[in-house]
């Protein structure tokens, strides 16, 4: 069975460092795409504004944190409650060599897109074979 966007699992990953707030975090669903030039990460972070995204890349560890502002009234009596609302958090170990200075990101319609350009040395080079 393929995973769909409807799954919004609470973070089950082992986190390296504990956070001070004991709030519930959600794990965004992602697509990670590799092309010859870069790795592209698309993450579903509904409710996150572009200003509320925190991205860090350190020692090959990519961390995504999307802050979600509370939007539902407190103590509301739900007729249907199929998902929880909270911050998004996920980390990845990136094995490819990335040119970290050129990482860029944009966030629109609740989707965060990250571009991680490969370091020159890691890009495939086409080698011309000369006929002798």
């Amino acid at each position, binding site marked *: *069975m*393929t*995973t*769909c*966007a*409807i*799954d*919004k699992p609470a973070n089950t990953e082992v986190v390296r460092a504990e956070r001070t707030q004991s709030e519930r975090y959600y794990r965004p*669903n*992602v*697509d*990670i*795409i*590799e*092309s*010859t030039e870069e*790795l592209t990460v*698309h993450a*579903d*972070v*509904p*409710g*996150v*504004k572009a200003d509320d995204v925190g991205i860090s890349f350190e020692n090959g560890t990519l961390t995504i944190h999307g802050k979600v502002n509370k*939007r*539902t*009234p407190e103590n*509301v*009596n*739900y*007729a*249907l*409650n*199929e*998902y929880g*609302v909270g911050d998004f958090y996920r980390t990845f170990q990136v094995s490819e060599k990335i040119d970290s200075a050129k990482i860029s990101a944009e966030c629109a*319609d*609740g*989707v965060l897109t990250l571009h991680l350009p490969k370091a020159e040395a890691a890009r495939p080079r086409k080698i011309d074979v000369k006929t002798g």
Partner: protein
Amino acid sequence: MMMIRRVNEPFAGLRFRNEMDRLWSNFFGQQANGCECAGRGYPNLNVWEDGEAYIAEAEVPGIKLEDLEISVVDDELTIKGERKACGCEDVTYHRRERGVGSFSRVLHLPAEVDPEKVEATLSNGVLTIKLAKAQAVLPRKIEVTAG
């Protein structure tokens, strides 16, 4: 002897219908949804009552306003839409967790709503639909005159 089941919860009817929807969609394998996940169907919804209106909220990241279609008939809210796949070529997927395709979900509300007074907003991938209850189901204040 007749069995009378007392329902105290105002939303019990909605929950029941929801269960029925789930049964049906499981029965049909959710094919129509374009989404292979068993269960409730996409998008997931949070619904609550806010005075004279119901608020339905759904997370629909990556879906543009023009790709959404919302309609209301009596007490039925229908949300249709499509999330388009990226037309990337010559790439390798390392992870593919985000579903694509078209979806449709029907929600039976606990009471009739006024189709003229439905407001939908889409902000950062969160769809909020405010549905005003129909005049007929609103509580009416009855003036008591002293005789």
